[in-house]
């Protein structure tokens, strides 16, 4: 048994050394290694509706939805003309002087004059209101300054009355009194505030722009002589005249629009392409609070592509837009002028060259038929506004619709530990529009460094439509944008990114007409997968 124990002991020790005789581990042999993680993360997602895509450029853009069908239209608005009352009627300052000699004053020469004598005279005023013929004016402001001077050595009382210039129905009248104090000449003045004064400038419906004043002068003797050579000078100064409202005839004036334009933001970043809409409309809206008619004469309507200078002129359109007078002060007359495919010959195609602007030239004339009854009226708040709306119902086709934008790029992080980067686009498209894209990375001289695709690649596939052009099947598309390690390293030299996309409607090149509705959406998801290689 002792023998067996010894054998077992030897066997155990042998086994132990067999187990432990394996290769030794040397920490000093650890040379290198790498950590190659691959991370996939979502970066962004969005659900774009019609508003988000079509009205994203500017909050003033308007997407109009047909409440019955859900069909949508883009409306671009422009304020093209505003005429204020102050431009049309401007009453100039009026200054007049009146000299009354002894005869006018009924002053008979006398060595000593202690009596009293009164004379009455008139003064006519003609106001300059440009081409306007003033009949009646209610003043918002205005001053009348009267200065009376004389070399008569007597007391003078001068009463000046304007029979047709009234306040609260009472003719305006003012008195200037001169009290002789031993020195001549003597003078004094008076001032009248014309606020709320109402003037009738017709001299009893016989003329316009005129006003009369009645002047009554009384000489009260002081015992001094009257030599007969004395006189009285009266100076009138109407100044700061502004009207609250007025009537009369304000002339046949060219209110002058040389031309204006409406930016069609849908095409703002477009460079090329064909775009055709079935039923575009251009509408001019006028609001007139002037008491006279206005006529707008269109001479030129066109779209302009500022990139290449292409202009397409609208033809066959009616040229006259008559804007009627307001009925009374404080009222407005509204009118509109439509240009559509029925009263023009080529409206649906003038947007075919991806225009950026809708441009028009017109002439605006007041009282186009001349001075015919009724009388014009105007108030200080009178205004005529003309605005336009270019309405583009989203029914039609487009192809080669190229959008291009360059964005700054500056990335100086160390990316040497990235082996590859993949951006994954997941687009679930409910719009019948296809988008091909190319992304080009540029250096500081705008020279291409590399592009994401060899040729522009379709990243958004068009949804399918039924016979009415309405989408009946959404289409999903996954696009991977791979950057190799070489391309990643080149990113440090990239200063700009050129984003280029070419859009076309479903089968647009073959004339397929599609419609956009308010329930169309596009689901967008962007993921990022990064393969790292970090040396340990």
């Amino acid at each position, binding site marked *: *048994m002792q023998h067996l124990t010894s054998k077992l002991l030897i066997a155990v020790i042998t086994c132990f050394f067999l187990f*432990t005789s394996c290769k030794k581990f040397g920490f000093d042999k650890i*040379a290198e290694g790498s950590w190659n993680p691959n991370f*996939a993360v*979502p970066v962004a997602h*969005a659900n774009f509706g019609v508003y988000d895509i079509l009205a994203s450029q500017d909050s003033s853009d308007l997407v109009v939805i047909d409440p019955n069908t859900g069909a949508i239209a883009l409306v671009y608005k422009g304020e093209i003309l505003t005429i204020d009352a102050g431009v049309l009627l401007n009453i100039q300052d009026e200054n007049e002087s009146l000299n009354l000699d002894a005869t006018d004053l009924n002053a008979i020469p006398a060595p000593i004059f202690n009596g009293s004598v009164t004379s009455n005279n008139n003064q006519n005023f003609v106001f300059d209101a440009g081409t306007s013929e003033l009949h009646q004016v209610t003043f918002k402001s205005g001053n009348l300054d009267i200065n009376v001077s004389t070399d008569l050595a007597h007391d003078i009382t001068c009463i000046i009355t304007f029979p047709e210039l009234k306040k609260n129905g009472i003719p305006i009248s003012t008195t200037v009194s001169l009290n002789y104090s031993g020195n001549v000449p003597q003078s004094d003045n008076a001032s009248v505030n014309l606020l709320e004064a109402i003037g009738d400038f017709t001299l009893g419906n016989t003329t316009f722009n005129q006003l009369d004043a009645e002047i009554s002068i009384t000489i009260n003797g002081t015992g001094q002589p009257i030599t007969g050579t004395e006189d009285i000078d009266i100076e009138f100064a109407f100044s700061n005249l502004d009207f609250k409202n007025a009537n009369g005839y304000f002339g046949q004036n060219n209110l002058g629009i040389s031309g204006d334009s409406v930016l069609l933001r849908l095409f703002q970043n477009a460079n090329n392409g064909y775009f055709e809409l079935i039923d575009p409309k251009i509408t001019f809206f006028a609001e007139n609070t002037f008491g006279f008619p206005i006529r707008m004469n269109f001479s030129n309507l066109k779209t302009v592509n500022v990139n290449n200078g292409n202009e397409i002129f609208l033809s066959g359109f009616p040229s006259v837009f008559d804007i009627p007078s307001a009925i009374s002060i404080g009222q407005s007359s509204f009118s509109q002028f439509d240009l559509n495919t029925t009263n023009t010959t080529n409206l649906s195609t003038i947007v075919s060259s991806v225009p950026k602007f809708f441009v028009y030239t017109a002439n605006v004339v007041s009282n186009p038929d001349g001075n015919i009854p009724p009388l014009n009226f105007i108030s200080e708040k009178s205004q005529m506004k003309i605005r336009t709306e270019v309405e583009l119902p989203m029914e039609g086709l487009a192809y080669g619709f190229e959008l291009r934008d360059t964005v700054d790029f500056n990335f100086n992080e160390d990316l040497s530990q990235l082996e590859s980067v993949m951006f994954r686009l997941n687009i679930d498209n409910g719009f019948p529009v296809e988008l091909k894209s190319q992304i080009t990375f540029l250096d500081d001289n705008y020279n291409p460094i590399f592009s994401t695709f060899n040729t522009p690649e379709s990243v958004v596939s068009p949804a399918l439509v039924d016979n009415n052009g309405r989408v009946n099947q959404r289409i999903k598309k996954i696009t991977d944008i791979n950057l190799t390690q070489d391309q990643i390293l080149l990113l440090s030299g990239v200063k700009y990114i050129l984003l280029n996309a070419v859009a076309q409607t479903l089968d647009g090149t073959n004339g397929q007409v599609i419609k956009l509705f308010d329930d169309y959406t596009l689901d967008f998801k962007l993921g990022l997968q990064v393969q790292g290689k970090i040396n340990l």
Partner: protein
Amino acid sequence: MKNLDLNINFLWITIIALFIGGNAIAQKNYTFYALENTAQSHYFNPAFKPSAKVSVSIPGLSMHSFGASNSGFNLSNLFNERPQDDSLQIDPQKALSKMKDKNFLTFESYNEIFAFGIKVNKNYFSFGITNRLNASFIYTKDLFTIAIEGNGKSLLGERASFDGTGINLNSYVEYALGFNREINDKLDVGVRMKILSGIANVNTRKSEFGIHTNKTTFDLTFDGSAIINTSGIKPFYDTLATDDYMPSDNAYNFKNFGLAFDLGASYKLTEKIKVSASLLDLGFITWKTENATFEIDEINYRFEGVYLNQFLTDSTEAVFQQLQDTLKDVFSQEESSENYRTGLATRFYLGGTYELTEKFKVGATLYNEIIKSNYRVAAIVSGTIQLKNWLSATINYSQYARSFGSIGAGVSLRGGPIQFFVASDNILGFIAPQNSKNVHLSFGLNLLFGKPDKPINKKRYG
């Protein structure tokens, strides 16, 4: 023939035990289970006792045991030898390939502060104070997969599961009173009653987390929930806590009171065959001081990236602020300070020895442990030799921690009243640490008085 049958049965049991042991992960001082002549064997089976009449463990020189294991991989699994030379390349993928779905990183220490034992006729009484620490980090293979290879490879389109991931820590001092009695010549029984004073605890009661990466969009879906109890940890991060907080104060104040039992029995079937069994650490601790329970409600959140539509109406700052608020809401946690109770890592041993010679015996031991519904087992075959009365040694082969196998060994030798012992459940952990998933070492000194060389149980069969 009877002996042959017994040997064959013993062999089958051993094979089955080794097979089961393939899923086990721990080392638990089972080498001591064979060193019956040490006072410390009493800790692993209360039916065991030293041969000396009196045994004393001196504070500071008493038994100290440390063990650590990682079931997922060992050091050599992290490297590959380069073909052109013998240099080593770090290869985390290789480590990954070695892992199971759920892996365990554990640390255990067992520090005897003081122990005393005395034999009175057929009875043996003992008293001991021991500082114990068990810590484990349970991690899933997917946790390492996502860290090593990211979520863009094998986890793409899959749910990375972190279910069960968590930390468990149990630190306490046990005050044990033991009693052992020879019932007859064949049967010994023993019991230890232990009063426990908890020091600190981290208890991952529930942990279910996962991240699913959508294969097409890369959307990330987070799901899960968790409940984590802690005790004695809060003062370390709570700014309102006093600066002089010492968790060791809980070692003797019994504010975190616990109770546990060890039970054991050994029985001699024949003159040469002895079977034994023990049930250890059947008990609990109620944690009451400096508690903090963190609860994360059910999460089910899908992150699809930044929502671009918000940029159309909000500023960039507002968009990211909202995203931050959302994430805060989703991953918010609630903290409470309720009392809670944890069970100990209850273990039980099943063992058998066969005396080939007077001085040499072989044995098989099945070590079992149940922690939080995880059943872990190690199978051990051992040989123990009593070379001299003052010198005995044991060597064993075990399979655990998913390693191919471990060799454990232990020696006890005595000079006069001083007995020195050292044991390891895996000596390869010191010789070839790169191939080991665990390391373990126990050592200490005992003072033995009164017939320390008397053979244990030898006289009683027959």
